[in-house]
């Protein structure tokens, strides 16, 4: 526990120090990154120990404010979220030293490092806080520091707009969390988490569940509360996107899981609600991702999809608890929580890869890119590993967690009654559809960005990013492979964490890691087969003529790079098929006359929950609130009158 405190102290200290040396951006960057890396070294030790089952005594510091106490604790549930937070923030900080270098001339990068380390510290604190008010305090520090990071390039209009949307969305989420904690505090008589367990009446528990789903779901980015993700991620600097998407949105999942442990025995419909939310977020998330051609916006929608998969896993787990089936509960929670770690690794990797590409090409438009694999081989290879992993394909880590959720659902449909088995069958079908669509989406991104010929960008000045940026990506890609091949070991680490959530009556008999041993064997076998096949191919081609030519374009004499398929044309059959949800707007200028000189097509897919839910609601709110302007006359006399009236009213109330 002391090491966690030390890591938080280091983070705060380095954020202040980097602000103090803001005149020298290079030093500020190095000191800032050192803070995160040092925190990684300090904090990872107790976090892993907690995962292995070590017990840590809770800490508490009293405060002068009523109800608030700075109590902290470390248990497996916290640890599972702390591990990716420490790892990713350390790696992203190293990446940031390279990424932020070009900004140093125009902007004060010391502010970046200041808020970056505050953000990391606040995420750690959110996971270890054991007091409702303290939790909310850290939650707000997290929201604000990430707001300033999103708004880093605040000289651009669209960045300012996006960061406001982010700030308002995260505040709206908190609006639902405050009554939830008040309910808890009211019924238990204290804001300490330790007093929250099973303190609620069933009605209050239902209320808390709904409030928590909305409040934490807004941070996590479940549909329809996801509106800030596709706005904030393209606006933020890429390392910030990686950190926010990789770990910050997971604090929403942490809150959800922590809340579930307080509520006691869940009714069956909670699990079904979570499955419905998860399926909706997963399928719509990946569909909207498919329709995007801004690489970071696309990745942001994929975060929505992956949060959907995590929520599906938790939903399966809850159904397992409600129906008393240990196997289903353990598989569901283990799958969902392993996906938390996995998504942090591959989504962090993909955002860093996207950042590396944007850094070189200065555009986020996928349709302008192409052929980058020849100039940026390391970025391409690591991005490919991330793309295969996020599509949930073996032998990488995404497959392991999706496999667990699949198996939870499969064992559910074979052992449960039809009414409870049907939602689980829905989980299977949704995961299959999500998997297929994710493959479509990531073949599109990788194929269009890195393969083929460059479309409109100039490749001459493009080169591989510096080692400070590629090394973190290599480490992340490597860990995706390691988890993919060593599933049973990782899942064994997860068992204490799952046991902390699943109230198991009787002995713990089911161990999902036994099933994963087989997955590891076949996945390793697959790798061996690929290597053997490559050797065989090399043997066949040795001492034979291997020629080079142009791509066969059916005899057309002058193929050029603009004739290639683009990301939009690649996704068009699917976006047309699902146009009922996507409502993609097309602006087409068809070729006219006998010798057409010009034609163009532009597509834009707006977010319907933004267009149809948030915008009308906010328009109404603005309409109502503008009536309040009558109070704001701008004349000092009137304001003085308000003060006098208020004071008299208070006096009368006191005298009464």
């Amino acid at each position, binding site marked *: 526990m002391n090491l966690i405190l030390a890591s938080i102290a280091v983070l705060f200290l380095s954020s202040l120090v980097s602000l103090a040396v803001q005149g020298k951006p290079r030093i500020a960057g190095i000191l800032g990154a050192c803070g995160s890396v040092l925190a990684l070294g300090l904090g990872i030790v107790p976090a892993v120990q907690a995962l292995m089952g070590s017990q840590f005594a809770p800490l508490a510091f009293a405060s002068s404010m009523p109800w608030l106490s700075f109590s902290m604790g470390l248990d497996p549930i916290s640890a599972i979220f702390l591990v990716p937070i420490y790892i990713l923030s350390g790696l992203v900080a190293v990446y940031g030293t390279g990424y932020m270098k070009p900004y140093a001339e125009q902007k004060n990068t010391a502010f970046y490092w200041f808020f970056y380390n505050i953000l990391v510290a606040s995420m750690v604190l959110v996971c270890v806080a054991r007091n409702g008010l303290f939790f909310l305090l850290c939650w707000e520090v997290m929201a604000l520091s990430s707001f300033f990071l999103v708004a880093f390039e605040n000289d651009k209009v669209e960045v300012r707009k996006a960061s406001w949307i982010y700030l308002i969305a995260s505040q709206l989420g908190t609006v639902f969390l405050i009554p939830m904690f008040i309910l808890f505090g009211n019924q238990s008589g204290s804001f300490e988490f330790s007093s929250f367990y099973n303190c609620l009446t069933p009605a209050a528990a239902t209320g808390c569940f709904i409030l928590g789903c909305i409040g934490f779901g807004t941070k996590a980015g479940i549909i329809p509360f996801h509106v800030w993700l596709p706005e904030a991620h393209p606006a933020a600097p890429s390392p910030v996107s990686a950190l926010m998407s990789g770990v910050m949105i997971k604090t929403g999942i942490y809150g959800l899981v922590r809340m579930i442990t307080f509520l006691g025995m869940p009714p069956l419909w909670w699990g079904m609600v979570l499955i419905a939310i998860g399926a909706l977020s997963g399928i719509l998330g990946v569909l909207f991702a498919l329709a995007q051609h801004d690489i970071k916006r696309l990745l942001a929608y994929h975060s929505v999809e992956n949060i959907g998969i995590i929520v599906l896993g938790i939903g399966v787990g809850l159904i397992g608890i409600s129906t008393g089936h240990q196997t289903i509960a353990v598989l569901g929670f283990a799958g969902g929580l392993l996906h938390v770690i996995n998504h942090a690794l591959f989504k962090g990797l993909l955002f860093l890869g996207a950042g590396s590409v944007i850094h070189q090409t200065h555009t986020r438009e996928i349709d302008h890119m*192409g*052929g980058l*694999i*020849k100039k940026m081989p390391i970025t391409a290879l690591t991005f*490919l590993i991330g793309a*295969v992993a996020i599509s949930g*394909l*073996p032998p990488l880590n995404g497959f392991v967690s999706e*496999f667990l959720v699949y*198996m939870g659902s*499969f*064992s559910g449909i*074979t*052992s449960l009654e*039809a009414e409870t088995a*049907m939602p689980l*069958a829905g989980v*299977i*079908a*949704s*995961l*299959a*559809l999500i*998997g*297929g669509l994710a*493959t*479509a989406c*990531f*073949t*599109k991104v990788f*194929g269009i960005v890195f*393969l*083929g*010929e460059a479309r409109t960008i100039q490749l001459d000045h493009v080169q591989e990013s510096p080692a400070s940026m590629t090394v973190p990506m290599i480490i992340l890609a490597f860990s995706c492979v390691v988890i993919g091949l060593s599933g049973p070991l990782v899942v064994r680490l997860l068992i204490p964490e799952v046991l902390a959530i699943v109230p198991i009556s009787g002995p713990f008999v089911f161990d999902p890691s036994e*099933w994963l041993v*087989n*997955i590891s064997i*076949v996945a390793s*076998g*697959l790798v061996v*087969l690929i290597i053997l*096949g490559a050797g065989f*191919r090399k043997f066949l*081609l040795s001492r*034979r003529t*291997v020629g*080079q*030519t*142009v*791509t066969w*374009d*059916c005899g057309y004499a002058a193929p050029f*790079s603009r004739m*290639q*398929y683009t990301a939009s*044309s*690649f996704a068009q*059959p*699917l976006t047309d*098929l699902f146009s009922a949800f996507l409502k993609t707007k097309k602006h087409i200028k068809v070729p006219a006359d006998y010798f057409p000189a010009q034609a163009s097509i532009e597509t834009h897919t707006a977010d319907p929950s933004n267009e149809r839910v948030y915008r009308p609601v906010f328009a109404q709110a603005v309409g109502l609130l503008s009536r309040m302007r009558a109070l704001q006359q701008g004349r000092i006399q009137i304001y003085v009158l308000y003060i006098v009236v208020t004071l008299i009213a208070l006096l009368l109330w006191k005298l009464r």
Partner: protein
Amino acid sequence: METEIIAMYAFSIIHMFVGFALAPLMIGIVNRTKAVFAGRTGQPFLQPYYDMVKLLRKGAVYSRTTSWIFRAAPVVGLACAVAALAIVPFGNAPGLLSFEGDLVFFAYVLGLWRFFLVIAALDTGSAFEGMGASREVQFSAMAEPVLFVGLATVATLTGSLSLSDMIAGLSLPLAEIVLVAAALFVVFLCENARIPFDDPNTHLELTMIHEVMVLDYSGPDLGFVLYSAALKFWVLGALIIGITVPLDEGLPVWASCGYAFLGMVMLALLTGIVESVMARVRLLRVPQLLAAAGALAICALIFSMR
């Protein structure tokens, strides 16, 4: 008892080699069936073997646009096909690597293959291959849920979670099995790029999917691609045969494998007949066909949960 288990595993290994050896023959049977329907003599049954051997002995030509992805994809595809072959059961012989949840691995390893085939097509920078890749991901994204719902039905009927146990556990000719088999046959035709989804005969029309994606391959790489496609035909076929041809557990393993092989030949004949009597449906109709298959699978699942 132990000798029986050993015999079973021996047959699992033998099935691997039988699959390796006979998979291209199925393609030959399909082609011959089509020829007979068209009133032609047709190519010899062994023509696919001749083609592959010839390709393996040739050099290769690559486009300057391509990168290592293009060269790696056929190898990854072959490895994935072999992995799938090791999982699928044949007759009474379980898959060589049969374990709880192998059905998920089976479907996803085919997904990995598709991933690489698609990015290899995009690697050439050709509009034709991009078009094929785009259609491939569209149709497979829709076929995937059908496959999973079909397998979920079989899992519910038998209460087991590995393909080998599931297929061994099926006994009665139930209505559910007919529905699942119909749905899986549609998936089989779609995944193997057969009519009515794709026309394996055409090379240079805008109608095809799989053939156009591999347009730039030559030499051993093309041989790998053709051979893995034949293996895919075999593994998905073995799955359907396993579900539709219920075998008595008391049957000797060699006899059950014989029946399963007969079933495979019938499936190849059926595929050839479908290709001869049907036209390729319009691309816009393909999702409807897959949705219909999905509806069949969902009906089967609901029946199985009674």
